[in-house]
């Protein structure tokens, strides 16, 4: 006879309610884990997307993500000609705000040379950029659809394709456009500002600089040697892909990452205390029944089984409810929630250990109870 299940069935509503409460707590824990992963993943997404081996940026900077970087656009030709370089492309990054369908969109504009590194990795709807002007490939999170048009700067752009999971470290969704469009967007002034500049007798800002040049190397080429060679050019700096990723994590998202990590630690501690408290309270409420069980001759293993099984069922149910809820709502979060099976398994392991430790407290109290407690009224 499984006493744990019988007891659960007896107070099913209360038990389910407790499991649901615990499940909500687990949802928050899983959400925090997902947000933490999402932050790291988002931050790296923009660096990983071009699948570059070397980043050539302005000398004395750690651009283009940790610091601003501007290098001449023709740097690309110089890099492309270096031994060991398979292909190279110039790239720009900028954040703009635009109105669309009555909403203000904050967009991370990536300008790249079509047919060269730096473009979107996979088009999930529509097509890639086909013409040199006024076309966009947007991340789904922008809310734009294929066929939409949106005004950026002084020009209207047609959305021709969609991608997923392309954003900057701040979570702003990316739009891809040709390098020339991006450079125009970067330098073209608002008409009023342009008139002021003309009145002052100066031309509108013109620039032929890009944020970085990225390069893919040929198989077997020495990336470190290549970056060392680039660094010999006094006006340029070079970073390997690994250095760029490390730099991004260490400088741009480090504080946010540690903040969320610390909060996650606190949340897990609170969850552990709550689970322990629930299980301990459940046991304390049953002390008289446990005394009766002892009196009629139930061995310790029956009593331990009753407490530990209930604790594990509670923990497993809370985990299951939490996982189900977060999977249902994760796409509604404003920032990306990335949950790996490994995360869910680690949380299951933590809950298992917490439940065992918490039931240990209950078991200790139960084994101490005097069977004589069952006698008398």
């Amino acid at each position, binding site marked *: *006879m499984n*006493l744990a299940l019988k007891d659960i069935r007896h107070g099913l509503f209360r038990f389910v309610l407790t499991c649901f409460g615990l499940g909500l707590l687990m949802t928050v824990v899983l959400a925090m884990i997902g947000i933490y992963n999402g932050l790291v993943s988002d931050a790296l997404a923009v660096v990983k997307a071009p699948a570059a081996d070397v980043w050539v940026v302005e000398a004395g900077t750690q651009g283009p993500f940790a610091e601003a970087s501007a290098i001449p656009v023709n740097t690309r030709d110089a890099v492309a000609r270096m031994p060991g370089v398979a292909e190279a492309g110039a790239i720009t990054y900028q954040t703009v705000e635009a109105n669309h369908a009555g909403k203000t969109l904050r967009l991370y504009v990536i300008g790249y040379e079509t047919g060269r590194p730096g473009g979107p990795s996979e088009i999930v709807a529509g097509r890639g950029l086909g013409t040199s002007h006024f076309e966009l490939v947007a991340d789904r999170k922008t809310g734009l659809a294929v066929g939409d048009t949106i005004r950026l700067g002084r020009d209207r752009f047609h959305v021709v394709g969609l991608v997923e999971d392309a954003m900057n470290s701040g979570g702003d969704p990316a739009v891809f456009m040709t390098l020339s469009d991006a450079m125009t967007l970067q330098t073209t002034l608002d008409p009023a500002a342009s008139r002021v500049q003309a009145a002052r007798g100066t031309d509108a800002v013109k620039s032929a600089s890009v944020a970085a040049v990225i390069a893919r190397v040929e198989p077997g080429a020495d990336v470190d040697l290549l970056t060392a060679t680039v660094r010999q050019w006094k006006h340029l700096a070079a970073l390997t892909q690994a250095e760029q990723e490390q730099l991004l994590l260490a400088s741009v998202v480090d504080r946010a990452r540690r903040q969320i990590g610390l909060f996650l630690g606190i949340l897990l501690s609170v969850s552990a205390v709550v689970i322990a408290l629930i299980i301990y309270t459940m046991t304390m409420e049953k002390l008289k029944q446990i005394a009766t*069980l*002892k009196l*009629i*001759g*139930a*061995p310790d293993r029956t009593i331990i089984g009753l407490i530990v099984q209930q604790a594990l069922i509670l923990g497993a149910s809370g985990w299951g409810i939490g996982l189900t809820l977060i999977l249902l709502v994760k796409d509604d979060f404003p920032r990306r929630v990335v949950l790996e099976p490994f995360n869910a398994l680690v949380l299951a392991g933590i809950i298992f250990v917490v439940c065992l430790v918490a039931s240990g407290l209950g078991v200790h109290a139960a084994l101490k109870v005097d069977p004589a407690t069952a006698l008398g009224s």
Partner: protein
Amino acid sequence: MALGDILIDVQGVAKHYGEGETRVDALRHVDLQVHAGEVIALLGPSGSGKTTLLNVIGCIVGPSSGRVELDGEPVFDAKWLRGNLRKLRLDKVGFIFQAHNLLPFLTAEENVSLVLDLAGWPRAKGRERARELLDYLEVGHRAPVKPALLSGGEAQRVAIARALANSPRIILADEPTAALDSKRAQLVMDLLRKLAAEQEACIVTVTHDEKIFDRFDRLIHLRDGRLSDA
């Protein structure tokens, strides 16, 4: 009445709690023998040591000194660990409580068959035996009902069925009729007497209920931890 085997043999048992100025002598050199088929009552004012004696006989607390034998087997020797005492209780002792103390999450039938489950009976046989006992105690029709839905009398009869499930030869009852009206109290005592005779068991009851005194073979008075037959 012809006396059967000695089922409870308490020799020179003393039990005290605390030491020095806080020492309380709950039992002082108590000798008691209870035979098979006997139904005895432990009487005495509050604090006289009735419950302590019941606890010692029921292997719940050990004596400070003296010797206890249940069904010819000495207990509380060095070899008796907590687990052994619990097994002994399971095999030889049945308890009936003042408040029936049925487990609220089990049905009447499950409360009875639990004891058999713990004793290692096959589940089907245990359920069959539980049904038999409940039928015998005229609460068979309430077998699938949880204790919260039983009347006081029904719950007490289910508790008696549980105490008898493993056919113990020693039944200890703590105020078994306290929650019952006088008619039901008489019926319960008649039932216990009948069971004691049929199963060659002995029954030791703590009670204050004078209306049922005539149902006992012996009334044993306890005062300040000392014992006297009446």
